[in-house]
């Protein structure tokens, strides 16, 4: 079936003319119609535009043009990324109906490469969360078990790809928002080196951490997409000028199943308790599988990694409290309470109160606190120091190992409502993913097995600009274990 093909396969089939891009898009749109009532991955479906884009690819092919490897492949875009003429809500009421007048750089690159944007996917509001339960438009259901979360904040794109509604997805990862949904939905989610993919057009949550990245069903697919969207952007001052590492070549090399000479660093601080036993077991098996492929395992200590989560929950809310200040009902979005009797200050406050969900409000207040005069040094200032310490840990660890490995997340997909009464319990889902965000290094989650019937994700972390390394190891693991297929929907 077309929808079960990988993106790489679809690209080849379309490129050779065996199947039309329009046919591929229609097949995915049909799938969406069939399963969306159960999955609810999409906030906006761009049927007409998608078909137009697909037909355009077919026309180019007919005119003899050489198409790129992903031309005509359908993709879902997380609703935190601006798409010109298509609603972008960040799963918030405060941006309900907002249509951006410009495309994000990563979206422009998708269009240039001929990918077909099917629509915008659900997420935790403003990318804050680990379960997509904080979406203002209702949760997304994990295709593996519709009563469980698909992860967050990018649960929609991961679920869409896991449910074969789309071949690919674009997400954003600030503390694990691509990787953790990947882990709990049995898909591949990668966070490139910070600055490796442009943030222009990515509605900012935590500016020094946000990183757009690929969501796919295979490592090669993720690498192909990574190569399309990555690269320097002069509109983003934090965009890295260095050339994009050869992630596709690395993925294909890894797929040959030979990891001779590759040193895997097992992070001691993430190998003990804290993870569910089923997760620990699956990860251990994965490590074993990798050693059979020739990899060496070495234990490394990253003593400050346990402080990453608390530091993150100071840095990210601080930056977001500032980034979200622009949502005030003046220039776009929701405006509440403007009945002619109220002042602007009141209208702003009522608008933000009505437009933001509880988790967003919590983080704004927390961030405002951490930045206040008198508290800055104790909170934000200290958290930035922890970042330095985490970076030193990574640097030291990468002298002993080529990549670091750990579970992606401590628990498999949990039932709805099981972590929403205690915010900090939800934050724990990001325990293993956060260090890479603070350091700025790339990391990927690749499925490594099941625990009680639910997917487990294996995380590979690499040094900054060493994205190719993680793709190689992830592809090797993928080649060594049977693929995971969710139950029929």
């Amino acid at each position: 079936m077309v929808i079960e093909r990988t993106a790489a396969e679809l690209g080849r089939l379309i490129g050779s003319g065996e199947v039309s891009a329009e046919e591929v898009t229609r097949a995915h749109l049909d799938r969406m119609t069939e399963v969306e009532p159960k999955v609810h991955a999409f906030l906006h479906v761009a049927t007409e535009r998608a078909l137009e884009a697909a037909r355009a690819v077919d026309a180019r092919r007919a005119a003899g043009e050489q198409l790129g490897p992903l031309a005509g492949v359908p993709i879902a875009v997380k609703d935190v990324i601006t798409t010109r003429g298509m609603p972008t809500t960040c799963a918030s009421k405060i941006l309900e109906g907002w249509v951006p007048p410009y495309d994000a750089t990563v979206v422009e690159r998708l269009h240039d490469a001929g990918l077909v944007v099917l629509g915008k996917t659900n997420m935790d509001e403003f990318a804050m969360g680990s379960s997509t339960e904080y979406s203002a438009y209702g949760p997304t259901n994990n295709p593996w078990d519709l009563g469980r979360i698909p992860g967050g904040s990018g649960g929609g794109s991961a679920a869409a790809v896991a449910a074969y509604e789309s071949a690919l997805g674009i997400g954003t990862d600030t503390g694990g928002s691509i990787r953790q949904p990947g882990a709990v939905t049995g898909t591949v989610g990668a966070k490139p080196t910070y600055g490796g993919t442009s943030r222009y057009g990515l509605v900012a949550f935590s500016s020094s951490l946000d990183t757009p990245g690929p969501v796919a069903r295979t490592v090669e697919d993720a690498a192909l997409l990574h190569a399309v969207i990555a690269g320097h952007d002069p509109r983003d001052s934090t965009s890295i000028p260095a050339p994009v590492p050869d992630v596709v070549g690395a993925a294909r090399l890894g797929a040959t199943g030979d990891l001779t000479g590759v040193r895997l660093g097992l992070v001691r601080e993430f190998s003990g308790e804290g993870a569910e036993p089923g997760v620990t077991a699956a990860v251990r098996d994965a490590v074993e599988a990798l050693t059979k492929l020739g990899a060496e395992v070495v234990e490394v200590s990253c003593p400050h990694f346990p402080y990453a989560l608390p530091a993150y929950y100071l840095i990210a809310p601080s930056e977001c409290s500032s980034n979200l200040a622009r949502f005030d009902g003046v220039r776009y979005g929701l405006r509440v309470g403007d009945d002619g009797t109220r002042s602007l200050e009141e209208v702003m406050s009522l608008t933000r109160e009505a437009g933001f969900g509880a988790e967003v409000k919590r983080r704004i207040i927390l961030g405002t606190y951490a930045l206040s005069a008198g508290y800055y040094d104790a909170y934000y200032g200290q958290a930035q120091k922890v970042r330095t310490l985490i970076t030193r840990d990574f640097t030291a660890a990468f002298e002993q190992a080529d990549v670091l490995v750990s579970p992606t997340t401590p628990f498999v997909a949990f039932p709805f409502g099981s972590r929403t009464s205690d915010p900090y319990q939800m934050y724990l889902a990001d325990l293993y993913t956060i260090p890479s965000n603070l350091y700025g290094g790339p990391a990927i989650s690749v499925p490594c097995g099941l625990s009680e019937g639910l997917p487990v994700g294996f995380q590979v972390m690499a040094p900054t600009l060493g994205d190719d390394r993680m793709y190689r190891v992830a592809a090797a693991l993928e080649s060594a274990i049977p693929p995971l297929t969710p139950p029929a929907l």
Partner: protein
Amino acid sequence: MAAISREEVAHLAHLARLAVTDEELDTFAGQLDVILQAVARIGEVAAADIPPTSHSVPLTNVLREDVMVACLPRDEALAGAPDAQDGRFRVPRILDEEA
């Protein structure tokens, strides 16, 4: 001892222009208290002699030339405006003087 009081939360909500309800004040104060106690442990390692990291990319001097780029047409700039008049964004009366 609570790390953050209800009054403090109310003050912060005002600074952040959030008209929180009384119920939210109570809930948030409790939840933020838990979070703050948890994050306070960074004090264990964040010694005075450690330099802070504000940017993970080691870039400096990223600049653009003083060359014009096309603007947004006005109708697009105002397209999302909840209220516009005479080509400007209209807002209700402002209380505070500019900072």
